[in-house]
């Protein structure tokens, strides 16, 4: 396993998948200082009070700004005439990720599968001890392109729903292309998941979307909050974002989805054990409407639920080579090939500082240490401030 010291202990990424009640799963483990010492290790200077903050464990790298899909809400404003990031530049970034002890690199863009060398990029990441994953629209995926994706640990296909739900989110009907891609990847033996963007027009059909994704061969559904960045930073965002009553019902819906599509009782005969549901960092504030979860934040911590880790456990490298706190945020002054110097970047430091000491009502929230103040992309767009997430149920109640 690869172990990186943290101020509170260490993160460890296991080399082999673990045989869990849910099936074989990759695992990243957080160990406190005593648990690290039990392994015969000591964090030494990493555990001193003035140790610098550690680099991210997951970095999203835009490998191209080219994409022909034209999604209405593309958060990067990718276009057909976009450009691929030079291979040599990416290698320098990968070197910096290796120096930093980053565990996972997620290739995005733009459409990463437009690069002929996407497989080579995955190999280069793995040579540096980094697990590569990728997201694709699935549009234009061919057998040859599928072969190039074989080195990726997981491929996620953007799939927002059956029927016209896909079009409601992206502005065109790409559902068939996405479904075909899921099937092709599954048939090739590549681990495939789906990314499902939640909007008010598709929220009610989530179960059908997930059921269809499972039927096609997906092993995981990642639920994503719609965010006002790129082409989605417009008034259209206000018409697409989840309604307050949907936000309040999110955790109930999540429980129903897990009960219906996952095997939480470990009954292998049910045939559900291989499917899991993930939520993105921006959905964590919505747990504040769930008394059970809000009353037991340790449960979220034990299972490594991450809220806004932008500038902390997460960072992004844009197609222009600059580091950003997350894929949706603006650039910092740090280049990707110097991400190991992230601790002196003023913007990243400011993001970390706010998450460590957020304003009310976040400051007194039980979920504060998990949620870390909610999605700053949303607060920046809606409130024009780097502050509490205005769509969080607790924040809404505080302001009313």
């Amino acid at each position: 396993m690869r172990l990186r010291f943290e101020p509170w202990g260490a993160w460890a990424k296991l080399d082999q998948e673990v045989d869990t009640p849910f099936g074989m799963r990759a695992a990243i483990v957080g160990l406190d200082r005593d648990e690290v010492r039990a392994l015969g290790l000591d964090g030494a200077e990493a555990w001193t009070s003035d140790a610098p903050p550690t680099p991210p464990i997951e970095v999203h790298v835009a490998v191209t700004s080219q994409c022909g899909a034209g999604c209405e809400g593309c958060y990067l404003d990718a276009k057909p005439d976009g450009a691929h990031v030079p291979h040599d530049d990416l290698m320098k970034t990968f070197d910096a990720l290796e120096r930093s002890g980053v565990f996972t690199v997620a290739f995005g863009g733009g459409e990463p599968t437009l690069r002929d060398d996407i497989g080579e990029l995955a190999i280069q990441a793995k040579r540096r001890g980094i697990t590569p994953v990728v997201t694709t629209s699935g549009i234009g995926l061919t057998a040859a392109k599928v072969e190039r994706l074989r080195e990726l640990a997981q491929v996620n296909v953007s799939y927002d729903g059956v029927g016209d739900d896909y079009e409601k989110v992206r502005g065109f009907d790409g559902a068939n292309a996405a479904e075909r891609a899921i099937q092709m990847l599954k048939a090739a033996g590549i681990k495939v998941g789906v990314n499902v963007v939640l909007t008010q027009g598709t929220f009610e059909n989530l179960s059908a979307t997930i059921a269809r994704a499972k039927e096609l061969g997906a092993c995981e559904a990642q639920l994503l909050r719609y965010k006002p960045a790129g082409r989605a930073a417009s008034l259209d965002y206000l018409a697409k974002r989840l309604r307050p009553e949907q936000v309040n019902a999110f955790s109930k819906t999540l429980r129903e989805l897990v009960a219906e599509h996952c095997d939480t009782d470990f009954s292998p005969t049910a045939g559900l054990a291989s499917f899991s549901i993930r939520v993105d960092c921006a959905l964590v504030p919505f747990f504040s409407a769930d008394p059970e979860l809000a009353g037991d934040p340790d449960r979220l911590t034990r299972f490594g639920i991450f809220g806004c880790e932008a500038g902390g456990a997460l960072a992004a490298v844009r197609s222009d080579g600059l580091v950003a706190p997350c894929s949706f945020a603006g650039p910092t002054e740090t280049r990707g090939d110097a991400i190991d110097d992230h601790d002196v970047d003023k913007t990243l430091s400011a993001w970390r500082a706010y998450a460590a000491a957020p304003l009310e009502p976040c400051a007194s929230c039980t979920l504060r240490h998990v949620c870390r103040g909610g999605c700053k992309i949303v607060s920046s767009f809606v409130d024009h401030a780097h502050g509490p997430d205005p769509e969080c149920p607790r924040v809404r109640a505080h302001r009313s």
Partner: protein
Amino acid sequence: MKVRLGHGGNCSSIGAVVDTLFVSAVVSTMIFAAVAAAMTRESITIVGKTKPISTPPKTGEAKSDHADEAET
């Protein structure tokens, strides 16, 4: 100990598996036991870099981090 399951396949958000939030205590214990057992079977490679601790130079002095280290 805290456990994050799965690779995460997404380029736009740091996601987290949530099925585990709703499992019984028995299954939860089984997950942690499986992870702990797997850890004992793997060798450990330390990654990342820990920078030398630097102290601010005193007023009127310009010292390298190396010099600070030597003093401490």
